[in-house]
Each structure stands twice: as structure tokens, then as C-alpha cells.
């Protein structure tokens, strides 16, 4: 029996992404956000999560995908990091999947751009590919 891992999955511009389930604090619906002027564009705003102020990062912009249409409300995937929680804005939530380590593979060399840095690897599922996000890198914006 090969080792398995659980991932919390979500859709982003038709790509199928996953983050380790243990990193996810909670998933919440769209929240009204407070804009942060002069911040990097992928910082969509601040949300109030039960008294805690959390930065919301738009994953589409973070990964260099085309921006979400105005009428589409994103979901918040709240990630635990060393410096407190951060929310990642995604299009749609998927299930929590248990995948076998055997199907893991590093991202192809031809993958370029921001995605190259942020995608840790790929799980080859039967019907599609699951891209695994490096959460620590994703929430670190200082390199930009």
C-alpha cells in the first residue's frame, strides 16, 4: 500500500489545484474586503476573520492567470502560515482528495513564469492533473 496524502482542491481558471489539507485552516465564502492602496495588485484586500485581520491574495493574479470577471465572486481558502493566516482567493472549491504518493511528479521543465516557482509538483489523477501549490512561497510576496 503506497503512502497517501490528503489535499484540499479547488479550481482556478479551469486548472485543478490542491494544497495540503493540514495547511488549510478553513474555507469561507466570499467576504467583503477592504482595499489596501499601494499594495501589490495580487493583494485584493483585508478581511475580518472573527477579529483577526487577514490578507487576501488573489491566486489568479499570483499565478499570472487572467483576472476574474467582476461578477464572479471568489472563495476564500484560509491557509495557516508561520506568520498567521492568509486567505487565497480561488474560483471554486473541490473535494478533499486522497492521492497516492506514487502518482507524484515534479513539474515539467518547460513550465515557466510564476507558476514554475509556486507549483511544487503534479499528481497524475485518472481524469486530470492535480497541481500542488507551495503555500509558503505563494504567500511570500517580497520576491516580487
Amino acid at each position, binding site marked *: 500500500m503506497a503512502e497517501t496524502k490528503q489535499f484540499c482542491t479547488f479550481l482556478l481558471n479551469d486548472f485543478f489545484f490542491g494544497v495540503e489539507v493540514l495547511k488549510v485552516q478553513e474555507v469561507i465564502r466570499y467576504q467583503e474586503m477592504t482595499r489596501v492602496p499601494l499594495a501589490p495588485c495580487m493583494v485584493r484586500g*483585508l478581511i475580518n476573520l472573527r477579529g483577526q485581520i487577514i490578507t487576501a491574495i488573489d491566486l489568479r493574479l499570483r499565478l499570472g492567470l487572467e483576472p476574474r470577471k467582476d461578477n464572479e465572486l471568489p472563495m476564500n481558502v484560509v491557509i495557516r502560515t508561520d506568520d498567521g493566516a492568509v486567505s487565497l482567493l480561488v474560483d471554486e472549491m473541490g473535494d478533499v482528495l486522497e492521492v497516492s504518493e506514487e502518482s507524484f511528479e515534479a513539474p515539467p521543465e518547460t513550465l515557466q513564469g510564476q507558476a514554475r516557482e509556486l507549483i511544487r509538483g503534479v499528481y497524475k489523477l485518472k481524469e486530470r492533473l492535480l497541481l500542488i501549490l507551495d503555500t509558503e512561497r505563494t504567500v511570500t510576496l517580497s520576491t516580487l
Partner: protein
Amino acid sequence: MDEVTKEFLIESYENLDMLDRALVELEKDPTHRPSLDSIFRTIHTLKGTCGFLGFSRLERVSHVAENLLSRLREGKLALNVEITSALLATVDAVRRILAIVENTGAEGSEDYSELIERLTILATVDKPPQGPSAQPAVVVVVAPSATAPAVIAQLAPAPAAPVVAAPKVAEPAPEPLKATVPPLAPTPVAAATAVQATASSATKSAEPASGSDHDHHPAEKTETRARGMSDTTVRVDVGLLDKLMNLVGELVLARNQILQLANTYSDPLFVKMGQRLNLITSELQENVMKTRMQPIENVWNKLPRVVRDISTELGKRVKLEMFGKETELDRTIIEAIKDPLTHIIRNSVDHGVELPDDRLSSGKPDVGSLVLRAYHGGGQVNIEIIDDGAGINVKRVRDKAVMMGVLSQDQANRMTDREICNLVFHPGLSTAAKVTNVSGRGVGMDVVKTNIEKIGGSVDVSSEVGKGTMVKIKIPLTLAIIPALIVASGGERFAIPQVNLVELVRMEIGQGNRGVEMIYGVPVYRLRGNLLPLVYLNKELKLESDEEGKQRQPAQDDAINIVVVEADGRQFGLVVDAINDTEEIVVKPLGKQLKSLTFCAGATIMGDGRVALILDVMGLAQHARVISEEHDRSRRDEVPKRAVSSEEKQSLLLFDVGDQRQMVIPLSMVARLEEVAPSEVEWTGNQEVVQYRGQIMLLIRVANYLAASQSAEPLKSKNGQDTMQVVVYSDHGRSVGLVVGRIRDIVQQTLEVKRQVHQNGVIGSTVIQDRVTDLLDVAGIIQQADPSFYKDQS
């Protein structure tokens, strides 16, 4: 029992529990440096605290234990079972004394000379790892008699090697020992054990240990009653309090929503429940807030005594002054700065302030001054400890640092004096010539730094030899609650900390108001004759695109809200769309993704649950380039010039006193304009007064002092219900109210006196708005009405 002692007890019990663990751990791994250091610090703190609380027995016990630990730390001794059990016995002894203190308020009459001797002997035994440097340099005479000074440190001719406390039992010790022994304590055993131990060097362990057990009896019955103190207070993890407060915040929001809902329902039961919920929530919120916030006074209250005791002990005279007692600090911060602050104060008194004679001979008053100051500023809580003592001898610190291998000679030469000063925070570095029981061992300041940095603060020392030393502690506002003004700009809300606010100006366009003027596209506003650079918040923060801004502009043009703020001594005006309210806000930090935004000091959650950013005025000023050194200087030079220029236009207040004459005074002389209802006027003697901001303010009816006033009785007599227009004039904190007829206008104009009169309350006449206008002689009238007004100030 006073509060200081109570806290000391609670804290010491905690520390002792920790000590037990650390000692046992250390025994497992004698080379484990951090636990040795932590034990040493704990004992050091304990000794220090009981020193100023006057528990001399406890102090003696911990002092010898510290000596022993000091030797261990230096590697002069290796830890063995005997030392460990002696140290553990010390911990037990300290526990017993604390129990007695808790029950009786005094430290009792138990005798610990046997334990002291045991520790002393252990510390005396030399196991020189590398030869000659281990010569005992300092002889510490332990004199157990209650009246004698606790410890006398005698400095032997100082060798070049690091000064080492290597205590020896003084020969005459046994004599006073016998004299003070209470009947219950087994003196002969103690003395005998001591002698035995001296004779048989250091290999014994069992007998001294059992010897110390005898001492238990008097304390045993109190032991069971002990800990009563810890029952009345519960120490709560601050993290838990944080969580609690966040949850209460959420509860408040939920309550707000329910209350709104309740308004739409007509069910009386629901409304009633809503109100109940409202009351409970408010009270809960208030109390949870209270658990966290404390004025810094709570820490400072203990300091006068600390200073007094240390200075008395050292024969120094120190005057302690404290400013900003009411500065509120978060519980976390209070806890964290308590010990560092005490340490710094002790250091300042011990090393900073000189002996009275030395002070006199260097031309200073014999009483040293120690100033404590706390304030919110620059988005942080600032605490300054300033003494006017000898200052830090930079050269000596440099030499010592090189000698101890902290720095290479090369490094030391490259460092600035300021950097060298900050070396006092380096562990193990002390320039004190001798080790006293107050300080000088080179621990303490490193603890100070560690503790302050733990809460995200910083500490900085600046010093001038012969002039004094200033220690500046900066602690972030994180979680501190501050009053702030909420403003709106570009559809967003922002909080501006009250400390940065100077005033609010609402400028109506029109009314002969010049409004915003431009210098090469840079907007400025004339505020009482001074140019105030303006910063449009929405443009500065790029809150809206240019077109959006232009579209909105005409609609907004009827009035401009200017928030005058100050950063780094420089004022500028922040133009915002709307000024809301002042609120107490809880400062919350931003995530690391937004750390680079300098204009923003954090965020807060508003009443409706949404997030608002807190503006860092300093950062904003830098961002908008309001602050730059050149600019600053040129402006300062400019100021005096402007003051003498008579051409300068100024704001003038036009009014009358009930007749046709128009009067004027410069607006800069006006503190406020008030309306006073006749019913508020009271009498003292034959003078009319009103209560005004906690003062009794004299009212002067200007009309009575003007020559032509008889013909025109003031308006108020025609209609008793009319409110009186009062121009408040303040000088040196005292105010008088000038009762005038009607305020007519405020104009911007040069004040050019066309005709000098100087009589009947008028200095001269001028022409304003095509009317002859008399310039009121404010000083003269006040002089007549209340001759004491100016006299009292001089």
C-alpha cells in the same frame, strides 16, 4: 501586605518551580549552557527583588547561591551532585522563607547560616581549569548578623584577569552566627558541619544535605497554609486573553446585527431580549478590554521605592521624576517591561548616578536626577529613562569588550560610540569595577534586551560621558488600544491616530476665501498666516484613477476637509472626503505581505465588522515627501522673517459690541468662540464668571470698557434669552471671556493701523471691508478688569 510583596510572591513561586526543573535538567547535562544561564538569571532576579523589598535573609541566601552559580558559569567549577543538591536545598530554603513571608509579612527568624556556609564553601573550592587566573580576586565576607550590612565586597588589588567573585568564609563569622541563632535552630550542628566541610574539602554531600533538613521544622506548619495568595489571583495566558478579546469583538458585531433586526420586528419579547443581549455584551466587552489595558503607572509605582532603597544603600541621592503615567499599555507589554525597566533603573542608579561628592566636584547638583517618560508616538509606545550621571565610558567598554573577546580590536575600532554604548546589552559584559549586590555582574542588561525584543520592541542607549545616559525603549503598538479619528477618502475608511492630530479645518469655498493655492502644482493652504502643504489622501494612495477624481471634484468643491497632522515636528494637511468620528480602536498588525507599506501602521476592525487601515502619519509624510531635511531647515529659517513682516496677511475676527462700530482683533489671539447662555453666568464678588472647562472664567463685557458704549446697551438686555457671544482669550493656561455683541466675520487681510489712538480700550483704527474698524486693546481691557491676570503669571 502591600502589592509589591504580593506580586513578588506570586512571581517567585513560579520562578522556583522553573528552577527546580532547570536544575535537574542541568544535572543531566552539566554543559547545557542555556539552562545554567537561566538559573543564574532567576537567582539574580530573586536576589535583586528581595534586596529592595528588604528581605535580607533571603537576599543573603540567594547571594551566596549566585556566587556559586557565577563560578559554575565561568567554568571555574564543574557541576556535581553536591553542588546540585546544595542549590536545590537553596530553592527549598527560599520556598520556606516565601511561605513565612506570605503568612506573616516578615521573613521570620529562621537561620540559614549553615546553608550559606555550605554554598560559600562549595564556591570557594577551586578546580582551576587553567592555572593562575583562578586566584580569588574578591573576598566576600558573609556576615550573618541581622544588623550588619548584608554583603561587603572588598576589592583586592585588581588583577588583569576578569574579576571573579570567589568568596571565602571569614574567620569571625561563627561568632555573630551563634548570637543570632533562634533557639529552635540546631546551631552546633550547623557550626560543626561547616567546620567539617571546610576541613574535608569538597567531596562530602550527604551530611550537609541532612543538616539542612533540620531547619524545616519551624516552617512546616506554615507550609500547609501556603499558596493562599495564588488562590485569589489567576494568571491567565495572554494568548487566551487575545482570543477572548477577538471573540468578544465578534460578539459585538453579531449583537449589532441582531439589534438591527430587532428594530424591524415588532415582537416585544424579541426586542427585550435584544436589549438584554446588548447590555450584557457591552459589559462583557468593557471588562475583557479592562483585563488587557493598564496604565504604565502600575509598573512605575514600584520604582520610587526601588530607587530609594538602592540609592540609600549606595549612599547616593537621586530624585526620580515620572511623566506620562497614564500612558496605557497592553497587558502583554506591561508584563514584559516590568523586569527590564527595574533592571535599567537599578543600573542607572548604581552605575549612572555618581556619589554626591563626585557630583559636586564635577559641578553638578549633589542630587542626581532620574527621569522616566512614557508616551505614544511614532506608532509606538516610547519609554525613556534618562539620568544625569557619569555616562558610559566608551573607551572602557571598548577595551573590556576586546579583552573579553566579544570584539576583535579591529571591529572595536570600526564601531561608532553609539554602537559601543549598545554593547552594554551584550551578555557577560560589565564595566563595573566591583560586583555589588545591586548589579555589576554583566547579567541584567542582556535580559533587558532579550525581554524587550521578545515583544517586538527595541532598546537603545545613548550616552555622553559626564552628562548622563538615556535608555530609550520602543514598543510596538500591537494590540494597544488608541483613540483615532476615522476619515473617509476615495470610498475607504482610514484611522488616524489621535497623537498625530493637530486640528481639523473645514474650508467652505467662497466667502472671500482663497482656499487652496498652488505653487507649481503643489497645493498649499494658508493656515493662520503659515503655509500648510496639503496632501490629498485619495491621490497619494492612488485610491481612484485620475478621471474618477476629476469627475468627483466639482461636486466636492463646496467644502474641503483638512486634517492637520504632525509628523516629526512638521505639520501638513491631509485632505479627505469626510471626517467621521473619533473612536477607540484596537491596533492589529498586518500580514508580512504588507509590511512594506510604510504609510500604514496596521489595521483595525470597525463597528460594522469591516477592516480599516490605520495611517502611519510619519510614513505617509515620507511617502508624500512632506518631510525632507532640506525643506525642514529652510522652513525654520523662514519663520522668524515671517513674524516681523507687517505686510503679512492674517486672519482677523470682526465683531461689534452692540452698536454700529466694527471692532477687530487678530484671530491668533482667540482661543475659541463660545456661546454662553445667560443662565450659565454666575457671580463671584462683583464679577461675572462662567464655569469653563473645569476653570472659573471671568467674563468681561467689552462694551463697558469702550467709551461710546453707554449709548448702546448690550444686546442681551433687550432679550434675556439671547446667548452671549464670548471670545475666549487664553494666556498661560488661564482664560478670560470677552463678551461681545455679535461675531461678524473672519477675514484675511493685512492689519495696518491707520490711526493710533490707544485709549478707551482701543489701540487704533484701520479700514476693513470698506469700514472703519477699531482694533480692540485686549491686553488693556483685561488689565483693567482683572489686574491679577497678567501679574500671576510672572
